[in-house]
């Protein structure tokens, strides 16, 4: 993908949230997106047409993360009320609430089969919840982190968590190993490359670090943006050619994956960019910000 194909034109502005939008995520096919924010709501949008479809209200405090299953039938969300909500997308009802975290829950993800929700948060634990059974107790609690866990990623066989203690820990279920990569800097967000071979970690020293997952080697560092005090997402483009991340001044950065040069940088929001999410197939991206908007970017 050449640089010119980066999504830099604002296609739509999704307005509706009051207050900061904390996360915005495409669904698996990229036709819809979800956003959640300080106003305790989760909103479902069609970003391509700029339409607000549905609002999910039940959280008692801000919603920090949301994830949707592959078949778009269920949602999970988490937030400041220390609970994980398991929603039915179409009816907008809460199917189940998982309580057990002792602190705010920062991140939540479904596994591939949507049978397990993995959540993590301020209580330093990573918890796996069962969606199949009616048990509201976690299946497993992983508490080897020593500080707040900010972000979690799942592959088919692994659970990966990034924490403020500077480690990215991979829990491989298949072989029963925990691999800890200490980055030395608080990790704000982790995201997997599309080939699942690398982890991109957004550290609080305003640096994105790309790790090789098999060796734990630091492949590249991406700098230039400001990320010092807010939880901000980062991601790779769908072709894995570029790395993108927001900045605390409201701009969006694109780096070349290989030579780490800033390929593109533009001002997208008036305030902190909290989240970026790249379309799984097209050259399209959504960003959310504290300025209560979600913006859709296309080439």
């Amino acid at each position, binding site marked *: 993908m050449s640089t010119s194909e980066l999504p830099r034109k604002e296609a739509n502005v999704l307005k509706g949230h009051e*207050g900061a939008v904390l996360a915005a995520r495409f669904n698996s096919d990229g036709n819809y997106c979800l956003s959640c924010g*300080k106003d305790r709501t989760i909103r479902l949008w069609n970003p391509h047409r700029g339409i607000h479809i549905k609002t999910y209200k039940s959280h008692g405090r801000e919603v920090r993360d949301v994830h949707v299953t592959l078949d778009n039938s269920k949602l999970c969300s988490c937030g*400041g009320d220390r609970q994980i909500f398991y929603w039915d997308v179409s009816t907008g009802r809460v199917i189940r609430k998982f309580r057990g975290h002792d602190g705010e829950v920062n991140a939540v993800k479904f596994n591939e089969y949507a049978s397990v929700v993995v959540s993590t948060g301020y209580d330093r634990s990573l918890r796996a919840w*069962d969606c199949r059974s009616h048990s509201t107790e976690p299946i497993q609690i992983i508490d080897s982190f020593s500080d707040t866990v900010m972000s979690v990623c799942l592959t088919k066989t692994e659970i990966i968590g990034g924490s403020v203690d500077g480690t990215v820990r991979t829990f491989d279920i298949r072989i029963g190993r925990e691999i800890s990569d200490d980055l*030395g800097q608080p990790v704000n967000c982790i995201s997997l490359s599309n080939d699942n071979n690398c982890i991109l970690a957004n550290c609080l020293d305003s640096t994105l670090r790309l790790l090789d997952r098999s060796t734990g080697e630091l492949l590249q560092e991406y700098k230039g943006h400001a990320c010092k005090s807010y939880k901000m997402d980062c991601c790779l483009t769908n072709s894995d050619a570029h790395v993108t991340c927001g900045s605390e001044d409201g701009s969006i950065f694109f780096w070349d994956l290989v030579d780490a040069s800033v390929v593109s940088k533009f001002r997208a929001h008036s305030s902190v960019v909290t989240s970026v999410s790249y379309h799984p197939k097209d050259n399209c991206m959504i960003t959310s910000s504290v300025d209560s908007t979600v913006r859709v970017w296309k080439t």
Partner: protein
Amino acid sequence: MDSDEEDYVFLGTPIEREEEITSRRKKAAAEASGNLRSLPPWKQEVRDEEGRRRFHGAFTGGFSAGYFNTVGTKEGWAPQSFTSSRKNRAEVKQQSIFNFLDEDEKAELEGTLGTSSQFDTFGFTAAEFARKQADKEQKQRPSAIPGPVPDELVLPASESIGVKLLLKMGWRHGRAIKDSRASSLYDAHKEARKAFLAFASEDVKAPYPANEPDEEPESFMAQPVDNDTQSSKSLPAFVCNPKQDLHGLGYDPFKHAPEFREKKRLHLSNDKQHGYRKAISIKDSLFGSKSGKAAPGFGIGALEEYDAEDEDIYGAGYDFEETCVEEDEEPSKLSIESKQPSRLSIESKQKVVAKDEGVLPGFKVASVSDYQLERFDPPIIPKDFIPHHKFPGPLETLKKLDVPSPPEVPPPDDSNLKLLIEGVAKLVTRCGKLFEDLSRKKNQSNPLFSFLSGGDGHDYYEKRLWEEHQKLGDQAKLSLDGKHSPSAQKMTAEGRGKLLGEKPLGRSSKETTSSSIASREFQLQFNLSDTFKKPDSFNKLPEVAKPFKNDPAKQERFEQFLKEKYEGGLRSTGYSSASNMSEAARAREKLDFEAAAEVLEKGKWGKESMVSTQSLDFLAAGMQFTSGGLEQVKDTHAEELVTKEKYPRREEFQWRPLPVLCKRFDLIDPFMGKPPPAPRARSKIDSLLFIPDSVKDAKPEEDAITNRDVPAAQTGAQKTIEAAEEEIEIVAENVERPVDLYKAIFSDDSDEDVEDTNTKKVEDPEKKIEVATTTLNRLIAGDFLESLGKELGFEVPPDTPYSTNKANSSAQIETPNSDAGIAKVGTVEGHGTFCAPNVGTGTSLNPEQETTQGSESPKNESIPGKPVRYSSKHTDGLSESISGKVNAEKFPPGDKKVRSPSSRRRNWSSSSSSEDERSRKHSRRHRYRSSDSNNDSSSDDRERYHPRSKGKRKRSSREKSSSSRKHSKHHKHRSRDSPSRSHHGSEREHSESRKEKRKRRN
């Protein structure tokens, strides 16, 4: 026909026929000519112009009108049907009065109403009329000027003589003539105020016709009565305030909430003028939130508490809105004033501004106020005043400044003694005379301290003391000169200590410092060892002693740290160079530095001239472990320390996914059918909190490993790693042992040491050295302990090592448990998931059991941790002996030693998961404290949590013993095992002993 009528006599009234109409008409015409007027009234008929008779008698039809007695149309009175279609719309009929008038009435109306110019005495018509008149007259009169006079020249008088007179008297058009000032003034004022308010909301550009609204009444009154300016106010000025809303006339939506009126108006005007200023400051209003930092729009429920997380972290650092509005208000006010006639004096302008600022919403400024602002001149400062505060009672040290210097004395030959003297002197200077007395008393027998009581080196001591005082005085003076009020205001004891260059006291005894002199003494003791080094010794740090020479930046920070630590004086606020470091990293680094510094200092103190880099690094690594945690220690071996700074580091651990998780992920459980993996030691924080525990935990676990024949090679590797860890841990412990008050008192530290050496049967040389170097510290600590113990009134165990009970514990594992497997399952259940080491020993656990255990773990959180009672027992020596007895009875004869209760306590506390968990949670905030403080706080927490869980614990333990089959088996086995148990009456004691044994076995 007429002749016929003459001839016949007619009786009655003939019924008229239609045919007779013509004749009737003729007749009517004839009558109209006038001759019929003479007829008597009853004979007269009313006829219309056509000669038709319109009025009939009551029996002949009444009133008839028009077309067949209709209104003149064929259809008569039938109403007009209203039709209106889209194509053919019915036009709206404009009706006038003429629609309803008859022709005659119309004719009558014609010309009667109309303006007559004769009556138009004012305005143009009058003038015109006058001119015409003049014209007419002009024509008739001969004139000097031929031709018509130009209109411009001759004009009629426009003003009456009365007006002229009034004007001469000073009256102007548009003013009232009345003299009653008060009422008019009031009206004017009211109107003006109204106008002003309206004006504020309206566009400022509109010319303001009114008079000054803001002028104060009193100033107004003060002006001369015949002042032109002032008299102009007499007439109220009306400001048109167009109605722009949709409310009914006279309806005031803000009637009961006047404070919103301003807001609304402000809002509107803001919208009109500056679109971007949307925000209205509601700071002052009732609904403004108190904190002001809450996220906009989202309150929280009434039952939820509002804590730090609810603050709007995304909000801007400062309040834009407020400043914006304030800026907004000022100019508008000023602009109004500037629009006003310039007569308004500056003074009154200021007054207005000052007044309106303080007005509360819903109130208005009093128009008359008796209050007069009285101004006083500032007091005159005496010429000789020096703006520095002199403390009436100077510090003790400062007082001694004028003490003459004692004679120069050469330092004693023994540099060791010299160091000691210097240290004591420094300490005495800092802590006061009391310390000197104390230490003198305490060290009477110690020949090393003979200099205190006039022995060897006393002169030198005196000299040093004086010097120190001098130095301290200088510092104090310096700080007095240099420092100023801002910091002085909030100077705490700590700040003062910093100022005086004291080393911050260890936090471990923070709570006790103020309360008991004993702990204070301890404090001093601690500081004593701290001050036994030359301040300048670190300035010329040898190359070998640079522990962080791999990282120049860090080394630099380390040196800075040393400087700050030992030189005293004013400290910099932080590592300026390390400002980019995170708080956590800084804290960790600080711990590292502390450790390294201590190591360095020990090297000096122990008179080991050359400290090898190797051992130094090793020690540093050990210390680092205490702060950093277990994971770090794994690779902070001497060699790895070199590459320590390189990130990212990768480590691998064993991790066991639970079977359910594997199932849900559709994977095969890698541990299916296998015994549970050797557990990883707990996370950093835990090891930070419970260093001694982890040592203990690690040990039996290791034993278990040796006893078990777990095939995995990795276990062996881990074992070695753990062995290495242990060494380091022990070292670390030794280093910081004297710091921890509680530990020093209640734990038999050497016990563990000996235990470990016995276990391993390996004497590592480094450790030996370390032990040697720390003996003195220990000596001092022990010394202190003795005294403290005396004061608290119980026996302190002698420092001699206890005989190990390790053999016992391992023996227990092997010995009588024929049904070990089952018993162990019970053990696992009892302890829950958190006591990882114990779980590790359950060799025969199958996955299902583990699951159940996992699901039980939340319940287990409330399982007893016995330290409740023990910690309370610690306070009296009696209970100690009791528990000792219990132990003696409980243990098989092979057990030669009575473990001190405290060590047991710790044992339990480490195994009781709930407490661990809680205290960990609780102490999360303190995690950046130094390790010793963590230790202390954790033990503190433990005690704090005890009462809460006590009752529950008892119950749960009891019910478990009754309900669980396996457990009861275990129970039976136990009772077989220790028959002496029946001697103890209390059930509690039983479960306790069971627990104890279980623990040991593990």
